[in-house]
Protein backbone atom coordinates (compact mmCIF):
# COMPACT_ATOMS: atom_id res chain seq x y z
CA UNK A 1 0.00 0.00 0.00
CA UNK A 2 1.45 3.36 -0.99
CA UNK A 3 1.69 6.05 1.66
CA UNK A 4 -0.38 9.19 1.23
CA UNK A 5 1.45 11.08 3.89
CA UNK A 6 3.22 10.69 7.17
CA UNK A 7 1.80 12.34 10.27
CA UNK A 8 3.08 12.73 13.79
CA UNK A 9 1.84 10.49 16.56
CA UNK A 10 0.21 12.75 19.17
CA UNK A 11 1.62 10.55 21.95
CA UNK A 12 5.25 9.85 21.04
CA UNK A 13 5.89 12.04 18.02
CA UNK A 14 6.75 9.02 15.89
CA UNK A 15 5.79 8.68 12.25
CA UNK A 16 2.29 7.39 11.47
CA UNK A 17 1.76 6.37 7.87
CA UNK A 18 -1.51 7.54 6.35
CA UNK A 19 -2.23 5.28 3.39
CA UNK A 20 -4.73 6.26 0.67
CA UNK A 21 -7.39 3.90 2.04
CA UNK A 22 -7.48 5.51 5.49
CA UNK A 23 -10.81 7.19 6.27
CA UNK A 24 -11.93 9.82 8.74
CA UNK A 25 -12.70 8.27 12.10
CA UNK A 26 -10.40 5.32 11.55
CA UNK A 27 -8.51 4.03 14.56
CA UNK A 28 -4.84 3.34 13.94
CA UNK A 29 -2.07 1.94 16.11
CA UNK A 30 1.20 3.82 16.34
CA UNK A 31 3.99 1.41 15.34
CA UNK A 32 6.42 3.18 17.66
CA UNK A 33 4.54 3.49 20.96
CA UNK A 34 1.48 1.27 20.37
CA UNK A 35 -1.00 4.02 21.22
CA UNK A 36 -4.41 3.92 19.61
CA UNK A 37 -4.86 7.02 17.47
CA UNK A 38 -7.96 8.37 15.79
CA UNK A 39 -7.93 10.11 12.41
CA UNK A 40 -10.03 13.22 13.00
CA UNK A 41 -9.53 14.88 9.60
CA UNK A 42 -7.65 13.99 6.41
CA UNK A 43 -7.27 17.43 4.80
CA UNK A 44 -5.20 18.36 6.62
CA UNK A 45 -4.35 15.19 8.48
CA UNK A 46 -5.18 15.62 12.15
CA UNK A 47 -4.62 12.80 14.60
CA UNK A 48 -5.80 12.55 18.20
CA UNK A 49 -5.36 10.01 20.92
CA UNK A 50 -8.33 7.63 20.77
CA UNK A 51 -10.75 7.78 23.71
CA UNK A 52 -9.86 5.64 26.70
CA UNK A 53 -12.13 2.59 27.01
CA UNK A 54 -15.01 3.20 29.44
CA UNK A 55 -16.52 0.72 31.88
CA UNK A 56 -19.33 -0.30 29.55
CA UNK A 57 -17.25 -0.58 26.38
CA UNK A 58 -17.01 -3.90 24.67
CA UNK A 59 -18.71 -6.18 22.21
Amino acid at each position, binding site marked *: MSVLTVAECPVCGGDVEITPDVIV*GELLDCDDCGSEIEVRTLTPVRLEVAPTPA*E*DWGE
Partner: protein
Amino acid sequence: MAGSHGQQGRDPVVVLISTGIRPEEKMLIEAFRRRDIALHAVDDRQVHGTLSAWPQNVPHAEVVLARSKSHWRNVTLARWLEAHGARVVNPSRVLETCGDKAATTLALIGEGVPTLSASVAFGRESGLEAGRQLGFPLVLKPVVGSWGRLIGKANDRDALELALEHKEAVGGSPHAATYLQPFIETGGMDIRAFVVGGRCIAAIERHSTHWRTNTALGARAVGRPVDEDLAAVAEAAAAAVAGSLVAVDLFETPHGLLVNEVNGTMEFRNSVETTGVNIPGIVADHVMAMASDGLGLGLPQVS
Protein backbone atom coordinates in the same frame (compact mmCIF):
# COMPACT_ATOMS: atom_id res chain seq x y z
CA MET B 1 -40.50 8.66 11.46
CA ALA B 2 -38.16 8.34 8.51
CA GLY B 3 -40.17 9.84 5.70
CA SER B 4 -38.81 7.60 2.97
CA HIS B 5 -39.50 4.25 4.66
CA GLY B 6 -41.23 1.79 2.40
CA GLN B 7 -40.63 3.68 -0.86
CA GLN B 8 -39.65 1.61 -3.85
CA GLY B 9 -37.39 2.39 -6.78
CA ARG B 10 -34.29 3.37 -4.85
CA ASP B 11 -31.52 1.61 -3.03
CA PRO B 12 -32.16 0.82 0.59
CA VAL B 13 -30.30 3.07 2.97
CA VAL B 14 -28.12 1.41 5.55
CA VAL B 15 -26.40 3.30 8.34
CA LEU B 16 -23.54 2.11 10.50
CA ILE B 17 -23.23 3.80 13.89
CA SER B 18 -19.96 3.25 15.69
CA THR B 19 -17.40 4.93 17.91
CA GLY B 20 -14.60 5.54 15.46
CA ILE B 21 -13.80 3.13 12.65
CA ARG B 22 -12.27 -0.11 13.87
CA PRO B 23 -11.07 -2.85 11.51
CA GLU B 24 -14.56 -4.43 11.70
CA GLU B 25 -16.30 -1.24 10.58
CA LYS B 26 -13.75 -0.76 7.82
CA MET B 27 -14.33 -4.32 6.59
CA LEU B 28 -18.10 -3.75 6.65
CA ILE B 29 -17.80 -0.51 4.68
CA GLU B 30 -15.67 -2.32 2.10
CA ALA B 31 -18.11 -5.26 1.94
CA PHE B 32 -21.00 -2.90 1.19
CA ARG B 33 -18.88 -0.99 -1.34
CA ARG B 34 -18.22 -4.25 -3.19
CA ARG B 35 -21.98 -4.67 -3.44
CA ASP B 36 -22.34 -1.12 -4.80
CA ILE B 37 -24.21 -0.10 -1.67
CA ALA B 38 -23.15 2.90 0.34
CA LEU B 39 -22.89 2.18 4.03
CA HIS B 40 -23.33 5.54 5.74
CA ALA B 41 -20.93 5.62 8.66
CA VAL B 42 -21.94 7.80 11.61
CA ASP B 43 -19.84 8.47 14.67
CA ASP B 44 -22.01 8.18 17.76
CA ARG B 45 -20.29 11.20 19.31
CA GLN B 46 -21.88 13.36 16.61
CA VAL B 47 -25.45 12.20 17.28
CA HIS B 48 -27.89 14.39 19.21
CA GLY B 49 -31.45 15.61 18.99
CA THR B 50 -34.86 15.56 20.55
CA LEU B 51 -36.19 12.11 21.31
CA SER B 52 -39.47 12.99 19.63
CA ALA B 53 -37.73 12.98 16.24
CA TRP B 54 -35.20 10.98 14.26
CA PRO B 55 -31.73 11.78 15.70
CA GLN B 56 -29.75 14.51 14.02
CA ASN B 57 -26.65 13.65 12.01
CA VAL B 58 -28.05 10.19 11.24
CA PRO B 59 -29.35 9.68 7.67
CA HIS B 60 -32.84 8.22 7.45
CA ALA B 61 -32.38 4.52 6.90
CA GLU B 62 -34.19 1.25 6.46
CA VAL B 63 -31.61 -0.55 8.58
CA VAL B 64 -29.13 0.69 11.15
CA LEU B 65 -26.16 -1.37 12.23
CA ALA B 66 -25.63 -0.50 15.90
CA ARG B 67 -21.95 -0.91 16.72
CA SER B 68 -21.14 1.67 19.38
CA LYS B 69 -18.39 0.58 21.71
CA SER B 70 -20.45 1.71 24.69
CA HIS B 71 -23.17 -0.71 25.78
CA TRP B 72 -25.46 2.01 27.11
CA ARG B 73 -24.90 4.29 24.14
CA ASN B 74 -25.73 1.40 21.82
CA VAL B 75 -28.92 0.48 23.69
CA THR B 76 -30.08 4.11 23.87
CA LEU B 77 -29.45 4.73 20.17
CA ALA B 78 -31.19 1.50 19.19
CA ARG B 79 -34.27 2.33 21.29
CA TRP B 80 -34.37 5.85 19.84
CA LEU B 81 -34.11 4.69 16.24
CA GLU B 82 -36.62 1.87 16.73
CA ALA B 83 -39.10 4.35 18.18
CA HIS B 84 -38.93 6.21 14.86
CA GLY B 85 -39.35 3.18 12.65
CA ALA B 86 -35.84 1.90 11.97
CA ARG B 87 -34.87 -1.74 11.96
CA VAL B 88 -31.78 -1.90 14.10
CA VAL B 89 -29.29 -4.74 14.05
CA ASN B 90 -29.11 -5.93 16.70
CA PRO B 91 -32.36 -4.59 18.18
CA SER B 92 -32.24 -2.82 21.56
CA ARG B 93 -33.68 -5.77 23.46
CA VAL B 94 -30.96 -8.03 22.05
CA LEU B 95 -28.27 -5.52 22.95
CA GLU B 96 -29.73 -5.21 26.44
CA THR B 97 -29.67 -8.97 26.93
CA CYS B 98 -26.22 -9.57 25.46
CA GLY B 99 -24.68 -6.60 27.28
CA ASP B 100 -25.77 -7.93 30.65
CA LYS B 101 -24.24 -11.26 31.65
CA ALA B 102 -27.01 -12.08 34.11
CA ALA B 103 -29.68 -11.34 31.51
CA THR B 104 -27.84 -13.51 28.98
CA THR B 105 -27.63 -16.41 31.41
CA LEU B 106 -31.32 -16.09 32.25
CA ALA B 107 -32.19 -16.10 28.53
CA LEU B 108 -30.04 -19.19 27.91
CA ILE B 109 -31.51 -21.02 30.90
CA GLY B 110 -35.01 -20.04 29.81
CA GLU B 111 -34.50 -21.67 26.42
CA GLY B 112 -32.67 -24.73 27.75
CA VAL B 113 -29.35 -23.83 26.09
CA PRO B 114 -26.40 -25.56 27.79
CA THR B 115 -24.53 -22.92 29.72
CA LEU B 116 -22.24 -22.55 32.71
CA SER B 117 -23.91 -22.31 36.07
CA ALA B 118 -23.75 -18.75 37.34
CA SER B 119 -24.60 -16.94 40.54
CA VAL B 120 -25.21 -13.30 41.33
CA ALA B 121 -24.65 -11.56 44.65
CA PHE B 122 -25.03 -7.97 45.76
CA GLY B 123 -22.90 -7.73 48.88
CA ARG B 124 -19.69 -8.98 50.45
CA GLU B 125 -21.21 -11.58 52.76
CA SER B 126 -23.69 -12.81 50.17
CA GLY B 127 -20.85 -12.96 47.64
CA LEU B 128 -18.82 -15.16 49.99
CA GLU B 129 -21.79 -17.45 50.51
CA ALA B 130 -22.41 -17.63 46.76
CA GLY B 131 -18.76 -18.54 46.30
CA ARG B 132 -18.95 -21.23 48.98
CA GLN B 133 -21.95 -22.79 47.28
CA LEU B 134 -20.38 -22.55 43.81
CA GLY B 135 -16.99 -23.93 44.91
CA PHE B 136 -13.44 -22.86 44.09
CA PRO B 137 -11.77 -21.84 41.89
CA LEU B 138 -14.35 -19.47 40.49
CA VAL B 139 -14.46 -16.49 38.19
CA LEU B 140 -15.91 -13.07 39.08
CA LYS B 141 -17.16 -10.73 36.39
CA PRO B 142 -18.89 -7.38 36.29
CA VAL B 143 -22.43 -7.84 34.99
CA VAL B 144 -21.72 -5.27 32.26
CA GLY B 145 -18.31 -5.24 30.64
CA SER B 146 -16.21 -6.89 28.01
CA TRP B 147 -12.75 -7.63 26.62
CA GLY B 148 -11.84 -9.46 29.83
CA ARG B 149 -11.74 -6.26 31.86
CA LEU B 150 -12.22 -6.50 35.64
CA ILE B 151 -12.59 -10.26 35.41
CA GLY B 152 -10.89 -12.13 38.21
CA LYS B 153 -10.22 -15.71 39.27
CA ALA B 154 -10.54 -16.56 42.94
CA ASN B 155 -8.80 -19.80 43.86
CA ASP B 156 -10.07 -19.80 47.43
CA ARG B 157 -12.24 -17.98 49.94
CA ASP B 158 -9.49 -15.54 50.89
CA ALA B 159 -9.01 -14.40 47.30
CA LEU B 160 -12.76 -14.00 46.85
CA GLU B 161 -13.03 -11.99 50.05
CA LEU B 162 -10.28 -9.63 48.88
CA ALA B 163 -11.93 -9.19 45.46
CA LEU B 164 -15.33 -8.48 47.03
CA GLU B 165 -13.78 -6.02 49.46
CA HIS B 166 -12.09 -4.18 46.61
CA LYS B 167 -15.32 -4.10 44.59
CA GLU B 168 -17.12 -2.63 47.58
CA ALA B 169 -14.40 -0.01 48.12
CA VAL B 170 -14.17 0.99 44.45
CA GLY B 171 -17.95 1.08 43.99
CA GLY B 172 -19.69 2.29 40.87
CA SER B 173 -22.01 0.51 38.49
CA PRO B 174 -19.57 -2.26 37.40
CA HIS B 175 -19.42 -3.44 41.00
CA ALA B 176 -23.07 -3.05 41.95
CA ALA B 177 -23.59 -6.75 41.35
CA THR B 178 -21.12 -9.62 41.26
CA TYR B 179 -21.56 -12.35 38.69
CA LEU B 180 -19.80 -15.58 39.60
CA GLN B 181 -19.15 -18.69 37.52
CA PRO B 182 -17.22 -21.84 38.25
CA PHE B 183 -13.76 -21.80 36.71
CA ILE B 184 -13.68 -24.25 33.81
CA GLU B 185 -10.27 -25.72 33.03
CA THR B 186 -10.05 -25.76 29.25
CA GLY B 187 -6.31 -25.64 28.76
CA GLY B 188 -6.45 -21.95 27.88
CA MET B 189 -8.82 -22.43 24.96
CA ASP B 190 -12.36 -21.41 24.22
CA ILE B 191 -14.46 -21.30 21.07
CA ARG B 192 -16.10 -18.34 19.42
CA ALA B 193 -18.88 -19.08 16.94
CA PHE B 194 -20.36 -16.44 14.64
CA VAL B 195 -24.10 -16.67 14.00
CA VAL B 196 -25.66 -14.56 11.25
CA GLY B 197 -29.35 -14.73 10.48
CA GLY B 198 -29.75 -17.85 12.59
CA ARG B 199 -26.94 -19.77 10.91
CA CYS B 200 -23.52 -20.51 12.38
CA ILE B 201 -21.21 -19.33 9.59
CA ALA B 202 -17.76 -19.69 11.16
CA ALA B 203 -15.89 -20.40 14.35
CA ILE B 204 -12.48 -19.90 15.86
CA GLU B 205 -10.58 -21.32 18.78
CA ARG B 206 -8.89 -18.77 21.00
CA HIS B 207 -5.70 -20.04 22.63
CA SER B 208 -3.93 -18.28 25.44
CA THR B 209 -1.26 -19.01 28.01
CA HIS B 210 -3.45 -17.01 30.41
CA TRP B 211 -6.75 -18.41 31.70
CA ARG B 212 -8.52 -15.45 30.07
CA THR B 213 -8.81 -16.14 26.36
CA ASN B 214 -9.89 -12.75 25.02
CA THR B 215 -8.12 -11.80 21.80
CA ALA B 216 -8.18 -8.24 23.19
CA LEU B 217 -5.74 -9.60 25.78
CA GLY B 218 -3.52 -11.28 23.21
CA ALA B 219 -5.09 -14.72 22.74
CA ARG B 220 -4.23 -16.39 19.42
CA ALA B 221 -7.11 -17.20 17.06
CA VAL B 222 -7.18 -20.29 14.83
CA GLY B 223 -10.00 -21.51 12.62
CA ARG B 224 -12.34 -24.17 14.00
CA PRO B 225 -14.52 -26.27 11.71
CA VAL B 226 -18.22 -25.84 12.40
CA ASP B 227 -19.65 -29.29 13.10
CA GLU B 228 -23.26 -30.18 13.84
CA ASP B 229 -22.89 -29.99 17.62
CA LEU B 230 -21.22 -26.59 17.58
CA ALA B 231 -23.71 -25.18 15.09
CA ALA B 232 -26.65 -26.48 17.10
CA VAL B 233 -25.52 -24.96 20.41
CA ALA B 234 -24.38 -21.66 18.89
CA GLU B 235 -27.58 -21.24 16.90
CA ALA B 236 -29.68 -22.11 19.95
CA ALA B 237 -27.81 -19.48 21.97
CA ALA B 238 -28.39 -16.86 19.28
CA ALA B 239 -32.08 -17.76 19.20
CA ALA B 240 -32.32 -17.56 23.00
CA VAL B 241 -31.22 -13.92 22.94
CA ALA B 242 -33.06 -13.30 19.63
CA GLY B 243 -29.86 -11.99 18.05
CA SER B 244 -29.36 -12.07 14.30
CA LEU B 245 -25.69 -10.99 14.41
CA VAL B 246 -23.97 -12.48 17.42
CA ALA B 247 -20.73 -14.10 18.49
CA VAL B 248 -21.20 -16.98 20.91
CA ASP B 249 -18.35 -17.88 23.27
CA LEU B 250 -18.29 -21.52 24.36
CA PHE B 251 -16.25 -23.91 26.47
CA GLU B 252 -15.59 -27.49 25.43
CA THR B 253 -16.10 -29.63 28.52
CA PRO B 254 -16.50 -33.33 29.33
CA HIS B 255 -20.22 -32.53 29.58
CA GLY B 256 -20.30 -31.10 26.07
CA LEU B 257 -20.26 -27.56 24.78
CA LEU B 258 -21.35 -24.92 27.28
CA VAL B 259 -22.16 -21.34 26.31
CA ASN B 260 -20.20 -18.78 28.29
CA GLU B 261 -21.29 -15.47 26.76
CA VAL B 262 -23.15 -14.07 23.76
CA ASN B 263 -21.82 -10.88 22.18
CA GLY B 264 -24.27 -8.56 20.45
CA THR B 265 -21.71 -6.26 18.80
CA MET B 266 -19.36 -8.91 17.54
CA GLU B 267 -15.74 -8.29 16.70
CA PHE B 268 -14.26 -10.43 13.94
CA ARG B 269 -10.99 -8.78 12.87
CA ASN B 270 -9.03 -11.93 13.77
CA SER B 271 -11.53 -14.34 12.32
CA VAL B 272 -11.76 -13.67 8.58
CA GLU B 273 -8.32 -14.87 7.53
CA THR B 274 -8.25 -17.58 10.19
CA THR B 275 -11.55 -19.12 9.10
CA GLY B 276 -11.45 -18.28 5.40
CA VAL B 277 -15.04 -17.10 5.78
CA ASN B 278 -16.00 -13.68 4.48
CA ILE B 279 -17.79 -12.65 7.68
CA PRO B 280 -18.30 -8.98 6.73
CA GLY B 281 -19.64 -10.03 3.33
CA ILE B 282 -22.16 -12.40 4.90
CA VAL B 283 -23.17 -9.70 7.37
CA ALA B 284 -23.64 -7.25 4.48
CA ASP B 285 -25.81 -9.76 2.60
CA HIS B 286 -27.90 -10.36 5.70
CA VAL B 287 -28.37 -6.65 6.37
CA MET B 288 -29.25 -5.98 2.73
CA ALA B 289 -31.82 -8.75 2.84
CA MET B 290 -33.39 -7.02 5.84
CA ALA B 291 -33.23 -3.63 4.14
CA SER B 292 -34.71 -4.87 0.88
CA ASP B 293 -37.43 -6.61 2.83
CA GLY B 294 -38.29 -3.20 4.24
CA LEU B 295 -38.42 -1.67 0.78
CA GLY B 296 -40.10 -4.61 -0.95
CA LEU B 297 -37.26 -4.87 -3.45
CA GLY B 298 -37.07 -8.63 -3.25
CA LEU B 299 -33.30 -8.91 -3.03
CA PRO B 300 -32.00 -12.41 -2.34
CA GLN B 301 -32.60 -13.55 1.22
CA VAL B 302 -29.82 -15.00 3.29
CA SER B 303 -30.46 -18.60 4.19
